[in-house]
């Protein structure tokens, strides 16, 4: 039977914490670009101009149906040759995950906006609001509340997907773990610690979003009963 020894892993905890920080960095950047991009794609898909709506649908469906790892490889290995620039693992990861998650965010935005009763649009029109200002002032404030749980779930998916960037040698938590496992010859302890770290990272994040949901539920209609 194997004797567990976490000392070697814990001694190099700073390596893992650095990896954790890098993971969080990519996650935040991907969210920061992915959400606005997703909103744009959603508006495009719902637009009344057929060409725009079809192009946006195609982009959304393409990024939803291809595996993120394939996309990452494409952006890291293929895209730099195509536009002849140097690509760092960080830039490739942020690009891939922004676009990939934006496709999913777009569907959440669309679902949320569509879930608002048509009467709201009509009421806004009746008091002389344009389509744009009714979207901004009437529809979105209500829709965003309904979207929070879906957003949270998608963000957690994104957080878990960031582990893929270890395959393009970006020093995220997973990469640091691989590094440490081969250095200390203690894969069991290293990967167990890393799994626990991911577990708590995601647990903390999901608890935060639940708290946000409660707060929003207090101010009128929310998703919690």
């Amino acid at each position: 039977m194997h004797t567990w020894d976490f000392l070697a892993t814990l001694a190099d905890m700073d390596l893992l914490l650095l990896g954790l920080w890098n993971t969080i960095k990519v996650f935040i950047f991907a969210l920061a670009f992915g959400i606005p991009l997703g909103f744009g794609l959603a508006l495009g898909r719902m637009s009344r101009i057929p060409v725009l709506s079809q192009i946006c649908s195609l982009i959304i469906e393409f990024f939803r149906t291809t595996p993120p790892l394939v996309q990452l490889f494409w952006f890291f290995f293929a895209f730099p040759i195509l536009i002849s620039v140097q690509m760092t693992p960080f830039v490739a990861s942020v690009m891939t995950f922004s676009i990939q998650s934006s496709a999913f965010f777009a569907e959440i935005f669309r679902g949320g906006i569509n879930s608002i009763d048509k009467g709201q649009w009509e009421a806004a029109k009746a008091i002389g609001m344009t389509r744009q200002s009714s979207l901004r002032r009437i529809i979105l404030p209500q829709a965003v509340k309904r979207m929070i749980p879906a957003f949270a779930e998608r963000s957690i998916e994104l957080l878990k997907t960031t582990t893929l960037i270890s395959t393009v040698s970006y020093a995220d938590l997973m990469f640091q773990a691989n590094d440490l496992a081969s250095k200390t010859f203690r894969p069991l302890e290293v990967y167990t610690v890393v799994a626990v770290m991911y577990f708590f990272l995601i647990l903390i994040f999901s608890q935060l979003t639940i708290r946000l949901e409660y707060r929003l539920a207090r101010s009128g209609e929310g998703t919690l009963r």
Partner: protein
Amino acid sequence: MDYNWNFASVFAYWNVLAVGLKGTIQLFIICSILGLGGGLIMGMLRYAKSRWISYPAMLYVEVFRNTPVLVQIIWFFFALPVLTGVEVSPVMAAVLGITLNTIAFSAEVFRGGIQSIEREQWDAGKAIGMSYVQSMRRVILPQALKRMLPPLTSRGIEVFKMTTLATVVAYPETLQQAKLIASYEYNPIETYTVVALMFFVVLFPLVQLTYILERRFAKSDA
């Protein structure tokens, strides 16, 4: 943008990609059958009345839902052999990681589906003398399955995409084979574009199917 696209260098290796596609499909079939089957059982355990059964099931579901699949696959590949002394092959590691993950996610779908059936249905089953297992099998599940079909199909699509992760343990699936071609022919652009399109062509009709299913069940349920 003056790159010369040369897809011939990819198609010359179509048999290498075919091996990969076969590997992907094999992995997909094994993982989705075991994962969805296991998920049904896990979902019922999670719904069980005894806490001694439902709490461990909940712990399992939360652990596997809240850790990345890649960590799970790597854990099974590198850590499990140390713990048990048994050699784990790439295919074993991939199957274990993806299946156990799918069990956790689909368990939640099954639980949600079972819970969505009104309590009266259980009472009615009991009233005509059916046992718990009988009412579950004959009354509850047939209705619940209908509602669960769209989310389960999306789960299947996720599994198909997840199979690409098996490349990290060098299991010969589509992406792994593409890596070989790209490094042999120095044509990553064409190879990875072809692979992305392959996945798109396979999965796009399935995604459309989920939309149709969702719409149909939304109608027949109301």
